[in-house]
């Protein structure tokens, strides 16, 4: 998907980030509903190289840091604070694949109503069964079986995460197909149940 380029409010250069102009070092006023991809200056896509994201974040945090605006006019001071806040939220959302997938799905399906509770067939019953089994394992303290369960759940979670990229790619190629977004929603839902189980298993070294 193409990135909508906006121009600097001061020098009219093309902006990388919607928050700051790297050409003339001017803070930009931004709308409340600015999307996190614009904030960090990446195209709206699931595919983001984490090293590039990290680097862009570091650059921007340095430029926007409120410490550098201590003696600036009040409006600019406040702008640097709100820009830093949204930069941090955007970075934390996009750096991790699941929250990035969740956020991107919300951006993409503004027009389309998804079934927000969809799960694979029989999944809920299986989750209930696993929760009960986990109760028993936690009670008996069987570390071998607990780590077996953790490995199994981790594996399933990884499989789900591995599907995000091809599914978003498929959607980019077939933006009219509502089924793909619904599939993504189902994946995200399932992953939350798996995480809930994983959270209950104490870490063993």
């Amino acid at each position, binding site marked *: 998907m193409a990135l909508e380029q906006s121009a600097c409010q001061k020098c009219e250069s093309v902006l990388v980030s919607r928050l700051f102009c790297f050409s003339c070092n001017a803070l930009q006023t931004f709308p409340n509903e600015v999307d996190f991809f614009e904030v960090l200056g990446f195209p709206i896509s699931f595919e983001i190289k984490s090293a590039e994201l990290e680097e862009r974040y570091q650059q921007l945090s340095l430029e926007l840091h409120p410490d550098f605006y201590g003696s600036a006019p009040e409006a600019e001071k406040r702008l640097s604070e709100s820009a830093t806040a949204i930069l941090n939220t955007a970075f934390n959302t996009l750096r991790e694949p699941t929250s990035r997938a969740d956020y991107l799905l919300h951006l993409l399906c503004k027009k389309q109503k998804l079934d927000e509770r969809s799960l694979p067939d029989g999944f*809920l019953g299986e989750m209930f069964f696993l929760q009960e089994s986990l109760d028993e394992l936690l009670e008996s303290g069987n570390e071998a079986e607990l780590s077996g369960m953790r490995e199994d759940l981790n594996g399933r979670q990884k499989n789900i995460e591995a599907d995000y990229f091809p599914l978003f790619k498929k959607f980019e190629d077939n933006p009219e197909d509502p089924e793909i977004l619904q599939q993504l929603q189902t994946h995200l839902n399932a992953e939350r149940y798996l995480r809930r189980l994983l959270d209950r298993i104490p870490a063993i070294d």
Partner: protein
Amino acid sequence: MAYSEKVIDHYNEPRNVGSLDKSDMNVGTGLVGAPECGDVMKLQIQVDPLTKEIVDAKFKTFGCGSAIASSSLATEWVKGKSIDEAMTIQNVEIVEELSLPPVKIHCSVLAEDAIKAAISDYKSRNKD
């Protein structure tokens, strides 16, 4: 965020935890989940086949304190009611009783869904 006293009471001493025999024709089982947080809730009712009154109810919930309290309260409320009366229980009543904050409203929705799922399971197994 602090839990209300009633939530803490139900959390510390949940009512009607357990299971009923799923294969019993007079038992209805509702299994629901909240994808927002991964909570899973099972609520079961036992119905008197003649009077259609709910004579027993059990639950088991894997979730936060509010989800446990909501389902515990739901089992207390359905007991002694007819299945038609139990169908009318609304999540807002649970919210009020337990003073749930806005972020925990979905827990009460889950409990209402669980009651309805249990009743509809009972009905689908007892079509005359």
